[in-house]
């Protein structure tokens, strides 16, 4: 896996970056347009509606931000696991467990005088829940030697099952059991929000701090360095007196913790209840975000914002063009693939160039 080190881009690099980004974008646009044509849809309208549907009004932008927050949180968390070379696919389940723990705490606070306390507590609980869930996968990897991808994936399905059981069982609404989730929480247990936009500043703040903390940790802290080193060559790190497995677990905890907080925000900030799809695939999507950001913490928030726009805007497709909104996913996937292809292509071109020059030298 390519682990990018965090380098401050100089003007030349920036120019190259822009050029490659342009190339990538054209590739993607061509591909998506093709797909749209296959589906017999007017491409330009499609793009237009997605744009309008995501940035067309303040309300829409607030929806985008609602999606941006969990994506960024998960993205930040994933940077730790990617650093040490772990594929934390289990992040989806970690979001869910965060949501479950948050719901549990809020339920305890249902008829207490100080709801705010429980609201605050729910974040800690969520981080804990996500972290523990991640630890399970971590131990399966370090102690049991189970590939983290399968461990994580399995845990995701288990978490999903757990949520369903809670919703249809212990936490079901009186009489009814329905996919629409548990009984909605009273306003007092909602995360405070700007009523006109139904958007809570606290959530935004959390996401931003997550990014900053991660940046500092990875760049300046010893832990960050160790993660990178172990990711590069865990065997050698033993010589430097490090214990790779410990750091793996640590990284998993970080990822799980951030994911858990994202889950908590989904409950207390967005849905105000627990529902089966509480994680909304943000975990999986965050994996793409981080890949597309080339594992660079500063790029993550922007990519996350872009992806959020696609997600929110694509709801216009079924409304205006009778298309399925899953086009968003197609575009996101295509973007990542195209980036990989372009960077690889650059690498090859460099190699070929070198070879030619050497031939010239030799002759």
């Amino acid at each position, binding site marked *: 896996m390519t682990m990018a080190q965090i380098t401050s881009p100089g003007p030349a690099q920036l120019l190259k970056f822009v050029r490659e980004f342009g190339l990538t974008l054209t590739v993607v646009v061509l591909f998506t347009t093709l797909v749209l044509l296959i589906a017999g849809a007017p491409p330009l309208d499609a793009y237009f509606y997605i744009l309008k*549907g995501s940035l067309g*009004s303040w*309300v*829409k932008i607030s*929806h985008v931000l*609602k*999606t941006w927050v969990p994506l960024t949180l998960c993205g930040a968390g994933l940077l730790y696991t990617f650093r040490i070379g772990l594929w934390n696919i289990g992040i989806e389940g970690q979001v869910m467990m965060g949501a479950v723990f948050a719901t549990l705490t809020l339920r305890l606070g249902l008829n207490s005088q100080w709801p705010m306390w429980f609201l605050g507590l729910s974040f800690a609980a969520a981080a804990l829940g996500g972290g523990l869930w991640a630890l399970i996968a971590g131990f399966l990897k370090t102690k049991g030697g189970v590939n983290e991808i399968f461990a994580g994936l399995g845990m995701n*399905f288990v978490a*999903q099952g757990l949520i*369903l059981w809670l919703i*249809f*069982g212990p936490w*079901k609404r009186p*009489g*009814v*059991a*329905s*996919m*629409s*989730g548990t009984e*909605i929480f009273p306003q007092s247990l909602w995360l405070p929000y700007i009523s006109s936009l*139904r958007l809570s500043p606290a959530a935004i703040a959390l996401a931003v701090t997550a990014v900053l903390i991660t940046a500092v940790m990875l760049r300046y802290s010893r832990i960050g360095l160790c993660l990178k080193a172990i990711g590069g060559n865990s065997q050698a790190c033993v010589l430097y007196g490090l214990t790779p497995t410990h750091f793996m677990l640590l990284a998993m905890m970080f990822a799980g913790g951030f994911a858990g907080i994202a889950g908590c925000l989904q409950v207390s900030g*967005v*849905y105000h*209840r627990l*529902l*089966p*799809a509480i*994680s*909304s*695939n*943000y975990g999986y999507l965050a994996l793409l975000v981080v890949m597309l950001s080339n594992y660079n913490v500063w790029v993550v928030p922007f990519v996350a914002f872009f992806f959020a726009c696609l*997600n929110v805007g694509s*709801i*216009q497709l*079924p*409304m205006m063009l*009778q298309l399925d*909104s899953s086009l968003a996913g197609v575009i996101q996937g295509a973007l990542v693939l195209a980036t990989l292809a372009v960077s690889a292509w650059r690498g090859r071109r460099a190699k070929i160039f070198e070879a030619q020059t050497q031939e010239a030298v030799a002759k």
Partner: protein
Amino acid sequence: IVAFATGVASAAKEQFKFGLLLVGPYNDHGWSQAHYEAGHYVEKNVSGTQMIYIDKVNPADRPGVTIPQLVDDLVEKGAKLIIANSDDMKDGTREAAAMHPDVKFLHISGDDVLTGKSGKNLTNLMGRMEYGKMMAGFAAAMTTKTGKIGYLGPLVNEETRRLAASCYLGARYAWEKVLKKDVKDLKFQVTWIGFWFNIPGVTADPTQVAQNFYDTGYDVVISGIDTTEAVVVAGQKRNEGKKVWAVPYDYVGACDGASAVCLGVPYFNWGPSYTELIKEAMGGSWSPKWLWYGPDWKNINDPDTSTIGFVYGAALGDDAKSALNTFIADLGTGKLNLFKGPLSYQDGTEFLKTGVSATDKQIWYMEQLLKGMDGQSSAK
């Protein structure tokens, strides 16, 4: 006529847009498609109206999307009336209704008006599918050779309970009164999959449940879910040479392409009631109501008057047909009321005393399945 004409004239000035939130795909050959086509029916019959719809409004298909968010969008697009077509949209609709007091909301199959949780701009509408289900059960009982009828249930709530129960009542009536058989020989199994349609890894797989029904000797499966698995599987089994039948649900066209196995389909025809309510909204004579419309007994399949209908499937035998005709007639004249005591719940507790016939509320809020039915009465 003059009034109507002026109404049109005024409407023509500016389009009356109404938004439609469909829980499933608009083309699911089931519940959602029935609403979708009702929307078109309105566009056709009430000039000056225009539908904006969005389908698959459910957490599994549109993760991260909330009802209020969609309503915001529809209102922004100029919708004056919002129709939410699933019980699962209850909270979202209520929240949105509170947020947009000047917009009218029509929540299908909800009961917020009864419970008084909703504001003045929200109306509940439901069709008395009980009758349709009775007919379905009747047809099934008339047809089954093994005396074992399977009911493919969605999730457990009042609505699904009462529908399954009505189905059973219809079946039992046919079995006892028409076929003159012992009720003990009639097996009526309800299996809940967990939602209105299949969500892999979340619900039980309706395809497998249906297959399992047929593999274990149930030769008629009645679908209570929004999608067509029952008919599809029945078709497969028929290809394998098994004599099996199925009764789909919700949508008038559900039997299309499955004539060999389809006994008929109880369906919703929302067109008329939509028209009525939208006219009200346009005319400004809107008031919150709790509506529960039944069939038009003059002709239950009249597209312009009847909210509930039942079309016969090609696989339905002739004597079954004639028996069903009289059954429907008797229901229509009220000569026959199946929700009439003595009826007791699954656990034996009494539901209706002898001779007492149930009130709407009693039926709407049934607490359990009825005695004689197998399957869970409530989610664990």
